[in-house]
């Protein structure tokens, strides 16, 4: 987050996409939303731009002609830790999960409305900013999660959680609004040897919803990203 080099005080968003038509509307849209749009038309160009400009966030299309989008992601992550949003097709779940596991912050499915992209972008920019600071209690409606005190309350009353339930909720709460892949959650809570046991997740997420959601069958706090993972809503 080094705005000193630029004369423009706005946050800079780098869009890496080979489709000129996407730039044609994303540029004006980002501009109108108060960001400074930067453009790269290929993976190579994009990596150079990331290194050169150190943008505040990156929007990366996975389908690039010159190199695999996931490769761009990996290489960028070697020197860049700002938020990276992925543009990907709906039928490419595996690709999405891989990208998320390789360090992407979130994804937006093509075709997308500009409102959705901007909302995801705002969320991503927000918690990279927060992650640096100390964690305060997170309030989600009537539920409050205090990671420092290891305390979860609902309407002021303490909610009794098993150690694994707490660990799962805590992992989700460290990055609210961000989608976490099943593998990421499983490794964090149960360890690397259980990275494929997604049925654990289904059971424990169900238990958490029973304890925290007002309407467990219609969850509003812990959202499922089908085939990808889960995300905790943003406060």
């Amino acid at each position, binding site marked *: 987050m080094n705005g000193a080099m630029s004369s423009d005080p706005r946050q800079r968003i780098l869009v890496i996409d080979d489709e000129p038509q996407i730039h044609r*509307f994303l540029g004006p849209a980002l501009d109108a939303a108060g960001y400074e749009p930067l453009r790269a038309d290929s993976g190579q160009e994009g990596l150079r731009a990331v290194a050169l400009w150190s943008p505040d966030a990156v929007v990366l299309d996975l389908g690039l002609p010159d190199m695999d989008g996931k490769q761009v992601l990996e290489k960028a992550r070697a020197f860049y830790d700002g938020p990276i949003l992925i543009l990907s097709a709906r039928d490419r779940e595996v690709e999405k999960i891989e990208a998320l596991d390789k360090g992407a912050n979130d994804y937006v499915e093509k*075709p*997308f409305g500009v409102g959705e992209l901007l909302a995801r972008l705002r969320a991503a920019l927000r918690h990279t900013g927060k992650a640096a600071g100390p964690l305060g209690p997170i309030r989600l409606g009537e539920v409050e999660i205090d990671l420092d005190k290891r305390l979860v309350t609902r309407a002021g009353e303490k909610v009794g959680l098993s150690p694994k339930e707490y660990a799962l909720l805590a992992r989700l709460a460290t990055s609210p609004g961000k989608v976490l892949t099943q593998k990421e959650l499983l490794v964090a809570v149960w360890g690397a040897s259980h990275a494929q046991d997604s049925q654990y997740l289904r059971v424990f997420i169900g238990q958490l919803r029973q304890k925290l959601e007002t309407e467990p069958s219609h969850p509003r706090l812990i959202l499922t990203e089908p085939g990808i993972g889960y995300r905790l809503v943003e406060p």
Partner: protein
Amino acid sequence: MTGEPKRPDPEALLAAANKASRGRLKVFLGMAPGVGKTYEMLRAARRRKAQGKDVLIGLVETHGRRETESLLRDMEVMPRRPIEHGGRVQMEFDLDAALQRKPAILLVDEYAHSNATGSRHPKRWQDVEELLAAGIDVWTTLNVQHLESLVDVVQRITGVRQRETVPDSALSRADAIEFVDITPDELRERMAAGKVYVPETARLASENFFKVENLTALRELALRRAAQTVDDQLVAAMRERGVEGPWAAGERILVLVGGDAMAGALVRTGRRLSDMMMDAPWIVAHVERTDRPAAGEGSAARVREAYRLAEQLGGSTVALTGGDIVATVMAYARRNNVTQIVLGKSVESRWREVLGRSLAAALLREARGVAVHVVTEATHEREPRPVRALGLGRWQGYAVGALFVAAATLAAWGLDVAFDRVDLGMIFLAAVLAAGVLHGLRPALAAATVAFLVYNYLFLAPRYSLAIGAPTDFITLVVFWAVALASGGLAGRVRDQALGSQRRAAAVTTLLAASRTLSAATGRDAVAQALAEQVAAAAGGRALVLLPENGEIAPFAGSPSLEALDAAQMAAARWAWEKGEAAGFGTGTLPQARWTFWPLEGVRARAGVAAVEAGAGADQEPLIMALLEQGAVALERSQLATEALETETLRRADRFRSALMNSVSHDLRTPLSTVLGASSTLLELGDKMSKAVRQDLLVSIREEAERLSRYVANLLDMTRLEGGALRLRTDWTDVRDVLNAAAQRVERRLGQRPLSRDYPDRLSMVRIDASLLEQVVVNILENAIAYSADGSRIELAAYEDRGNVVISIEDEGRGVPPAELERIFDKFRRMEEPSDRSQGAGLGLAIAKGFIDAMGGRIAAASPIHDGRGTRMLISLPKTIATPHDLL
């Protein structure tokens, strides 16, 4: 055995696995009729029935013995089936009814029985085999003298040759043997008491079959055989469990058979030797000598018979070819680790033995470390030696010989008159020589005798008398005969050799031709027909090929014509198809059929069945077998080719589908992303934007919607082409109009690119579908626009070239790499990174080619066209016959 003796023999395990689903065979074995086998069997059966087993009596011969009959009471006995043949009706065991009834245990008396003509199998043991295969346990009875390998021995003991025999393998297959024994004295007492009234063996009895010595010997044989079968089972069990043991002594027996009467006896000796050596593998071999005439008909038949017998007795067979018997045999023996060689010595060859030239002696000299067993011929088995026939009929040879002698006489007479003291004997010698060379031994000998008589009578003193004047004249006679022997024998051998190699060459030629025809035939029908023709030609009779159709075998091809088969023939055909064994005429199954059916065994599976008319090609069996083998492989190959074609078609369809999916995924989504993105931007942020930016977003929305529409149209065109639903509406068309219309359609997308048109004033009309051609030109123009920089020229031209109207579209883009040039018309083919991706999908050129092909034209691309840049697309449309323009 190898270094891992503990591992169970896989073949033994396989045999055990096969046994599991098979029925179990129990044989009640006895030394002679009357020992009480049937009685014992029935008693055991009653015990089983009392235990609740489903016991059925298929057939039992009581021979009127009351004790035996009483045992049949309360037992379920199957009715017999009448079989009519030649006006006689015989009541036989009903195999099909038994198979249908499928009892747990079935009793079938007299294992060695020969079925009435007209039954499915000629022998009862074959019926039993089928029952066992169907999973039915069978109990049967057998007297030891009926065992095939013991036929010689029993004959030696009793002087009676058994006609009803059972191959030894049929007994070895028994899972249990119960030895029914009484002492010879007891048996004789029972006979005396009238308890053994045996009409069947009345003849044997009368020939003193039941003498104590005979019975003792037979009893010993039966005991030994029973013990040996138990032994075999022990060995099999040990092998199955991988127990290390002495069974595999590594013995391997080679039985040499010739085409003489001893062949059968030699084969049986081989089997007995194998028995003595813990079932050592044994091979029956016949050496065909390349330096000798091909074996005569009778001899070849006896070799075939020996092979068949060997296979029945559980041995394997091999045909060896070589010039030197000893070298050939020893080479084979060393290659196959043979430890025992069995051969016969015929009476005729004894004089050779005196000279130390017998085969046995030669083998003994060569066979180091190999035991040689020599079996001598039993004199009564001798058969008259077939007379060797030579090229011409015999009397013709003698006549020609006589002519030569007559000519020699005339010549000698003339010489005698003209000159003095000529050795006229030489003239006659020439006649003998000529007769020998041309007609072989016997005519030569006859000519020599006649020549001597004439010479003696006419020219030797005393003249005109047959009296012999000087002892030297005898020498003349001996010389004549010697010349006749030498020349005749030599010529005969040369001729026979020529005949032999002719025959071998003919077989090789037939096989080569068949192989060529079969490999040239494409498709199952053609291969089947070619095979039928080749087999018919080789057999010299009718032949059919039957192939499976929906699991049922049916005649598929035939030579000279395809024939339908009646139920009896089809039964044999089905047998060959299902069991993989020969069936029908001349085989052990359904021999009364009018065809012989052979399974066509391919490498992977059975390909079908071939049928040869009864009686045809009996002497050509090896050739026919080779043909069938080739045919089976060819049929299989055609099958594989069909499958490969289907797979390829599927694979292509699959590739098309995945290319289509990719295309839809990318080329539909990108314009949609733009439309959705730009429109949502306008809706949500439009008030914060300048008018110019808003305008640009609206333009991009329209452009992308157009792009989508073009893409959908392309997809539909492609589907029409792929689905064969393209319908041409052809009419006389001026190509220039079409080019202008196409140019009009792309005008807005041209940007700053100047489009030049170069048309002649007069251009022939062509009969085409104008709307399709317009689409083709549009697609090519769009392609040109997509791959060339703004401001570069695009040139549209039309002209006539010989019988064609040619359209040329040139751009100044960066061209197509040579490697890509031939693939640019492929579906979903798109060069990397077009400067403007609005073309999309890579379908444009594929559609262009499809449409042009449909109109009978041709399309081609050339690149680069100048300075390493640019692409030229040429469309050539035929002017058909005379165009209206030419008529004007």
